[in-house]
């Protein structure tokens, strides 16, 4: 066990700290329409556009580190520890993080691996620079956990894909220039075969985006309807009918990133503060031993998940290290724990805990209720907890798959 950084990384840490200091209080001149962008600090020292900020970060090697220079990246070696240092120092100093989103997190890696030269050149740079926002078109109303059942149809007619159907759960669709999308192009093929991975400009004729209100009362997602939408034949990644494999390369990516462990530690600290401030029968909640015991239980789980994240990080740095099912459990454990934590905060506040939106007496901008519900959504989304348990038991533990069902496809 060695939790220290070597000199190279201690130096890098210093460098990042200096960078953060230099850009302390940086703000953006363009209010980004992308809700995934970090909010900025108050002191108005340096002003840049979001896109300029992306470029500054890339230049430093703080973002898109391993993406080749020719596609707008830094062109270096990937370095997990440096990524971690950047994340930690940026978070500490409240320096705006680079933009995230499905284009950067999922499409760029996919194109790098499977895109044509032309696609790489056309899409990666503007995506990294925050000038091209993407949304993901995988889920459909009748294909939730069962992606292979998707029905949106693409026909190749006169050198164009003609697309008809419907997607759901497309976050950021209303801000996006592009969608990467799974479409059934070979209707005769078996379920997993016959799907292709297409790139669709969102301003194409025949696309309608309808906001999808969820239980938080926000429209965090959308439905997207396609009626005879036409796109060029070349807007396909990988071969016809191989979209399933193309998409799967990035699905794994998503599952790991849903519940970042640093966030939960911040949230736990907020909860502790809340319990010091809120009073019941004249005494701060933190001094009520029953509530405190619930807090301590959650703290134990949070500490375990924090330590576990370190173990996973270490396994990335030391490829010999076996993390067995350690990675597969992250989504299940992380989302359930976060939901539980937010739920305790609600109980801690009592009646105040049910206030919402812009109500008087609201604590922490109503974030506890919002995130409590939002994480119920995450428990379900991106593979429900039930699907996660299937994955853990079958792929992780080698338990036999459910036998094929008579009559099912």
């Amino acid at each position, binding site marked *: 066990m060695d939790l220290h950084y070597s000199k190279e990384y201690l130096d890098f840490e210093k460098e990042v700290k200096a960078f953060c200091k230099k850009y302390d209080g940086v703000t953006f001149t363009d209010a980004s329409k992308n809700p995934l962008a970090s909010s900025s600090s108050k002191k108005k020292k340096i002003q840049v556009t979001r896109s300029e900020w992306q470029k500054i970060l890339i230049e430093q090697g703080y973002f898109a580190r391993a993406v080749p220079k020719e596609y707008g990246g830094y062109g270096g070696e990937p370095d997990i520890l440096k990524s971690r240092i950047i994340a930690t120092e940026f978070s500490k100093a409240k320096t705006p993080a680079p933009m995230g989103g499905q284009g950067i997190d999922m499409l760029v890696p996919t194109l790098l691996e499977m895109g044509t030269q032309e696609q790489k050149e056309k899409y990666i740079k503007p995506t990294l620079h925050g000038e091209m926002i993407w949304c993901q078109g995988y889920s459909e109303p009748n294909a939730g956990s069962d992606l292979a*059942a998707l029905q949106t149809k693409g026909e190749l007619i006169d050198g164009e894909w003609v697309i008809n159907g419907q997607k759901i759960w497309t976050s950021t669709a209303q801000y996006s220039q592009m969608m990467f999308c799974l479409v059934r192009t070979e209707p005769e093929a078996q379920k997993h075969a016959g799907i292709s991975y297409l790139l669709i400009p969102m301003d194409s004729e025949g696309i309608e985006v309808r906001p999808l209100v*969820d*239980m938080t009362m926000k429209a965090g*997602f959308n439905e997207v309807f396609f009626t005879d939408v036409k796109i060029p034949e070349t807007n396909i990644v990988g071969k016809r009918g191989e979209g399933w494999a193309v998409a799967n390369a990035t699905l794994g990516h998503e599952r790991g990133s849903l519940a970042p462990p640093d966030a939960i530690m911040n949230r736990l600290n907020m909860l502790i503060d809340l319990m010091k401030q809120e009073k019941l*029968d004249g005494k701060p909640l933190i001094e009520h031993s029953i509530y405190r015991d619930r807090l301590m239980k959650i703290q134990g789980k949070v500490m375990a998940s924090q330590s576990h994240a370190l173990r996973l990080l270490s396994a990335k740095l030391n490829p010999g290290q076996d993390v067995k099912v350690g990675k597969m459990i992250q989504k299940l454990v992380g989302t359930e724990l976060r939901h539980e934590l937010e739920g305790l905060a609600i109980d801690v506040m*009592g009646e105040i805990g049910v206030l*919402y939106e812009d*109500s*008087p007496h609201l604590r922490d901008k109503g974030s506890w209720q919002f995130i409590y519900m939002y994480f119920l959504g995450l428990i379900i989304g991106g593979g429900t907890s*039930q699907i996660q348990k299937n994955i853990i038991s079958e792929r992780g533990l080698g338990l036999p798959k459910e036998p094929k069902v008579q009559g099912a496809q």
Partner: protein
Amino acid sequence: MYFGLSEDQIFFQDNIKKFLEENSSVDILRKIAADDRTFAKDIHDGIVNLGINGLLVPEEFGGLGLDILFAAAISESLGYGAGATPFIGSYVMAPIAIIDGGSDKQKQNYLTKVASNEVKFGVGFSALTGARDDSEIQIKGNKISGRSLFVLDYEYATHFLISDINGCIGIIDAQANGIDLVELKTIDRTRNVCELILKNVDFEILEQTKNSKNTAEKVIDAGRIMLAADSLGAAQNMINKAVDYAKERKQFGRAIGSFQAVKHMCAEMVAELEPCYALVWHAAHAQKHMPNEARLMACQAKSHLSDVTKEVAKKSTEVHGGMGFTDLLGLHYWFKRIGLNRQLLGTPERVREEAALLQLN
């Protein structure tokens, strides 16, 4: 020996469920949640037409003279249909307070008017049930000052019934001078709560509550049983919806209800919720017939139902997959109703602590 609801009680429940089924679809709930109050008003009027306002008012004052078990049955059906109407405060806690704590004159005056629907009460008891922000209510002679933080059923209220921390309960006229009414917004848009900021407002103290907490305790016990019953109904509806969805929705070539994981979630919900019927009914029955156990059972009904229904709300949403999270199916209106009930009149931990102290002393 008969343990259960009577035919009359079930008939009344069915009427309410039917009314809400016809008049309070998810589309209507969505409009109410968007603050379109005309729909809420229609629901309230319809429910009052069924007679709930006079439910607990003794027959001598023009009411139906029914008991808390009957009220619990109704509360269950309101929870089942997510009825956007005052009930627990206006038509249960308020009449009980006046019946138990009022002078003959006060009873005559107010109960008659509750039965005839001239007077409607908003009810503020959170000073007694663990309010997080100190209420600082002070009663001096016939005046009251301070804040009552979570006043239930205020929307149509002509009067408010407020308790201080000692269980001294009194009535103020909604039109009186010195009242500042602050609307609160909660997750649950089917019921309304407000804060009252009172400055030297005329206050008519209920005669028997000047030096005794007894009435206040009875009112809170009844209120807690109503909340438990409301959550019971809401949770049952969520289970029913989950089971129906599991039968219809297909994934991987088969109904999701044929997957053992989904089946077992449904079974677990039912196994937890089913015994809650008996607990709620028993606790409600005890209020009239088992005085020694009445308080304990009310506490346990409230806290146990809070925990069971929280779990049901989560699991039944999960059974629905992504659709459970959307406003399209509107499952969340029940989820939030359960969420509000949990925190009202004492969180589970606070109420269990009361239950323990009842038995230790």
